Each structure stands twice: as structure tokens, then as C-alpha cells.
């Protein structure tokens, strides 16, 4: 191992040794079979002599303090600051990725800091962050680091929240769920074709992930980034609404977020706000309680409303909380329980 990267290298979890020094990664459904000296699709894990290594433990290439609403988490500890960290790498290649400069590159192609778990916790504390967010790229890729940091965070009384595309195998996911406090899944679309052509991934494993998270009791929210002409048809919204209601119930927050031209889709215009509003209306009509319009600062669709009396309970402008009218997890006005972690 090169001395320069030895600090970041740990034997990976979830892989299988094969003949002729090959390995099969078992962390995500891609199940890359990797020759000696090669890396998997994610670019952040490498076969060295028939053993598999993560190259990104403690190798942070993006770190910021963000409001938790930016992730977005609307029903988890509103107003909390989240120390948000990421390493390089991702196990899909979304053509609209806004963080492609860290997600679609190899670790050695980024400027990184050595930030072991205790150091991340220390920085979170220094910045008065109530949470650490594993975000920006794809935290499944830095699974070992995420787990170790979440353990250190929990000991220090700091929450851990995960922002992920959800393309992960069930075993590592089930190990992760009780060790973190909230997981937000970016559901890219409700069609196999979009996942194949635009994401280079698969839909079903992501749906399975969402179901597993929900069953585990870990707080869960879903974001659907609406890309004009690609995943914005009403049939898809209706199918999604039915699935969420049927599999998860009406209380899982669902955010329809506005796309802005990025990465390999710079020729596609931003999502019309009317499209987001239509998606929200379809899901509201299906009976989902907490459907949001995202990435449109100042839109009333960013507020939380009581599903019973329809009064505004959390007023937001962008990532800023203007008012919270939830008391002990209930609507201040009609005492309806409001799903979330308050």
C-alpha cells in the first residue's frame, strides 16, 4: 500500500473471495466482480491481491455545516444543524448529479482531509451541530466510515442522519438502520427504464431499501427529484403515491424536488413549479399526509400542515424555520399526532 493512502485504507466489509484473486463485492446490488488491482464501479474500493479494501475511511472531501432541512429532513429535529460530510465515490451515475465532482471521481482525484470518526464528532460539537449527516455523494460507498462515525456520534449524544440513493444490499442496510437516527432516500423515479438509462441503477432494490428502513423504525423520508421529460408523467406520480400508501402508509414524508440543469443534463430546463404542484396534488389526493414541494424557496408547499385540521404547523422559507406549532409531537390546534421525530 502506498504510504500516502494507508491512513484511509481498511479491509472492506461485505465481500466474497473468488478464485484467481478475484473478489465479489456484496455491499450493493451491483455485485461487482473485481480483478486484482482493479476497483469496483464506485471507484472507492479496490482489490489488492485478492482482498478488498475501502480507500475512503476517514477520507473526507466535502464538509459543511448545513441546516437539517437542506438534506431535506422536514420531520426530524427541525432547526438542527447537521455537520455534513462525504467521501468520493458513488455506485450509480445519475446524469443530473449536482455533486458529480465528488461522486463521479476517484478518491485520489479529490482534495481530502484525514477526518477519523472522533475528529468528525469533535468538529460537529465545535460547530454546535446536533447531527452528523452522511451526504453529498453516496454514503453506502463509505459504509465502514459511516458506521464507525455513527457509533462515535451516538456515544457523544449526536444524531446521525443518512442521505442516500438507497442502492444497497439488505444485510448491510439492516446493520445500518439501528445505528443511525434517520435516513432519507433519493428515489430517482418510479420506473425501471429511468433507473437503467438515466441513473445506471435499478429501481427494485431501492424500493426494497425503503421498505426495510420503514420496517426497522428508523425515521425515513423520501425525495423524488422531478426531471422534465424524463420522470415527470402523472401516471408515474400516481403509481408512486399508491405504492407509498400501500407499503409505507400515509405518514412517510415525500418531497418532490425541483431539478436544475446539471452535469450531463445541462440541456434540460428546470422543472416547472406547476409540475411539482401537480405531483403533490396527486399524492395528496391519494391520502398521503406530508407531501412537499422542494427547492422552490418560499413556496407554501414547503410548509407542514396538520393532516386533520389543515393548519400550518411548520412554516419554512427555504431552509429556515419561521414557526413551529407542534407540541409534544401533536398539532397545537387539534392534538392530531404528527409523524416525525420532534
Amino acid at each position: 500500500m502506498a504510504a500516502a493512502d494507508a491512513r484511509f485504507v481498511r479491509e472492506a466489509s461485505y465481500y466474497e473471495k473468488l478464485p484467481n484473486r478475484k473478489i465479489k463485492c456484496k455491499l450493493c446490488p451491483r455485485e461487482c466482480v473485481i480483478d486484482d488491482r482493479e476497483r469496483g464501479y464506485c471507484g472507492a474500493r479496490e482489490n489488492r491481491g485478492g482482498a478488498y479494501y475501502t480507500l475512503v475511511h476517514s477520507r473526507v472531501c466535502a464538509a459543511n455545516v448545513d441546516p437539517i432541512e437542506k438534506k431535506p429532513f422536514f420531520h426530524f429535529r427541525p432547526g438542527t444543524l447537521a455537520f455534513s460530510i462525504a467521501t468520493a465515490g458513488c455506485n450509480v451515475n445519475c446524469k443530473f448529479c449536482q455533486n458529480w465532482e465528488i461522486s463521479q471521481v476517484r478518491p485520489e482525484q479529490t482534495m481530502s482531509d484525514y477526518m477519523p470518526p472522533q475528529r468528525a464528532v469533535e468538529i460537529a460539537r465545535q460547530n454546535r451541530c446536533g447531527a452528523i449527516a452522511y451526504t453529498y455523494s453516496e454514503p453506502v460507498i463509505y459504509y465502514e466510515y459511516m458506521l464507525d462515525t455513527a457509533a462515535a456520534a451516538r456515544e457523544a449524544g449526536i444524531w446521525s442522519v443518512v442521505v442516500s440513493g438507497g442502492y444497497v444490499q439488505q444485510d448491510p442496510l439492516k446493520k445500518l438502520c439501528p445505528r443511525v437516527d434517520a435516513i432519507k432516500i433519493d428515489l430517482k423515479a418510479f420506473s425501471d427504464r429511468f433507473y437503467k438509462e438515466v441513473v445506471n441503477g435499478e429501481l427494485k432494490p431501492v424500493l426494497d431499501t425503503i421498505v426495510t428502513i420503514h420496517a426497522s423504525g428508523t425515521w425515513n423520508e423520501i425525495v423524488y427529484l422531478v426531471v422534465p421529460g424524463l420522470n415527470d408523467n402523472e401516471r408515474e406520480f400516481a403509481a408512486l403515491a399508491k405504492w407509498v400508501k400501500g407499503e409505507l402508509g400515509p405518514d412517510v414524508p415525500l418531497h418532490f424536488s425541483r431539478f436544475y440543469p446539471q452535469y450531463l443534463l445541462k440541456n434540460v430546463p428546470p422543472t416547472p413549479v406547476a409540475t411539482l404542484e401537480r405531483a403533490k396534488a396527486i399524492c395528496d389526493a391519494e391520502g398521503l399526509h406530508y407531501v412537499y414541494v422542494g427547492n422552490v424557496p418560499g413556496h407554501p408547499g414547503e410548509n407542514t400542515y396538520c393532516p386533520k385540521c389543515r393548519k400550518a404547523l411548520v412554516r419554512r422559507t427555504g431552509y429556515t424555520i419561521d414557526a413551529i406549532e407542534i407540541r409534544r409531537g401533536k398539532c397545537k390546534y387539534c392534538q392530531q399526532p404528527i409523524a416525525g421525530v420532534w
Partner: protein
Amino acid sequence: MRETSRRDFVAACFAGALLPQAPPKSRVVVARDSEKPDPARLLALLDRTVQALENRDSAREAWRNIVRPGETIGLKVNCLAGRGPGASTTPALVEAICERLQQAGVPAKNIIVFDRLNEDLESAGFRIQQRGGGIRVQGNDGWGYEADLMVYGSAGSLVSKALTRVCDAVINLPVLKDHSIAGVTLALKNMFGAIHNPNKYHVTAGNPYVADVFMLPPIRQKVRLSICEGLVAQYEGGPSYMPQWGWPFHGLIASRDPVALDYTGWQIIEKKRAEMGMKSLQELKRAPDYIATAAQRRLGTNDPRMIDRVEV
């Protein structure tokens, strides 16, 4: 001598223009030695290869047909598999090419040797040389990548500055071996080592990614010649170094047409696999379909009727 009238002359010109012209064939030279070549024999093998390719009587003339004095020439080697017979492009072949380039008027300071990483180059026996007025040897981690993506079809990548800003032309030096995902890794796929994200392009056996990456302008426009090293070739287990599946091919395969070279190399590997009683790449569902895609993109030809295979 019969005088030609102006009318007859013009008519003759038009007749020539209207007659369908047969498209030129792509020449692929397969040069073999009877034994493992030492440096002197390797140089002779190289000369035979390039002279036959360029249809010239001397190596100097052949290389002068490929490069021009004053150009900066990049040698894209393949060092992924480290050291070992047939694993990577050998320093001996690179030295031989550099000798001939200099004789053709390209000074040493205008020759660069590059691959993905310094670590890869060193593992294959190259010495990193970033300065000093001679031949520069450096990985893309030294040259850097462009900041803006280049996009063609399924490919969206940052290209090495070695290619975009330093080289006027590239001599592509792959190794004759199979690939456990993409079928084979020859001239077309060797240029994965010039982009920042090759790991994204191995799904669906590299198709259409390999072809689309080669379509990126700096690659398509600058790769002038491919010489595939097969002193020891590998028919199974690639791209890793698997000596149990190597065989002493003792040869070089060269072409200006990377698609024709890849098609030829693929057939050679399939033939060896059949000799060894192994299933074909097609049967194993890892046929290099990207070669046909590259032909569709007009990067060259995979039609054996349009390949002029010359054995020397």
C-alpha cells in the same frame, strides 16, 4: 501520340469521378518472431511491423510517415497488471519505439509515456521522469485532468491533460489479452487509461462505453497508430496477470485502424482459446460487442473483407 481534345479530357475526368471507388482496406500487420525477442530482435520485429504497415523500405521512412519533427508524441502504455510476461507494455518495446521516433526527428523532450497512475507505471518497470529535458514518464495523476467534461453518447469524462494539452499525436500501446468483463482489452479499451472514470464504463461488457470514450475528440483525433504488444499474450483471466493463461505469441499487431486491430486481436485470442479447449467469449456472454459499436461509429472497420491482414 494522340492529342486529347478539351472535351475528351473533361469527359474522362467526370467518368473517373462517377465510377464507384472501392473504399480502402484497413491494414493490420501481425508480425511474429520465432523466439522470445531480445532487445535487438525486438527492434527488428518493430521495424518489420512498421515498415509493412506503412509500406516503406526503411524504418526511418516508415516512422517519418507516422510522425513529424517538432510534434510531441504520447505513448499510451498499459500498466494496469504490473510486472510479468504479458502483463503490461514492456519498457523494452517503449525504448525501441522511442529510438525510432528520435531517428524520425522527434527529440526526446518531445516524447511522453503516460498511463493512469504513476504507481501503475512503476509497477510495470517504468521510472517516473517528470523533468530533466528527456523523455517524460508520468501518470495522469501527475498530468492532471481537464476541468470540463467531454461528452459523447454514453461517455462523459474528464480527459487527461497529457492528451489534451501536451501531445500532438498518440501511439497507443495496448497488450494482447482478454478481459474478464469486456471480452478483450486492446486498442480501443486502452484509452480508458486517458479518462478519469473508467470504472463507470465496465457495465454491459463495456458496450457502448468503450466506443463512445474513443469518440471523445482528443482521443479520436490524436490516436494515430496502435501497436499491440503480444510478446507474451493472455487468453484468459485478463486484465490481471495470470501466467497460467499466457502463451508465447512473440508478436506485435499494428494498425492505424483501432477497430480493425481489435477485431484481429480478438480473433487471435479466440483461436487460442479454442486450441486450449475453452469456451468462446460469445459462449461466455462476454464477446466484445463494443468493437461492432465502434465500427458503427466509423472509428474503423470490423469487417474482415475490409481488413488487409499482413503477416510478416
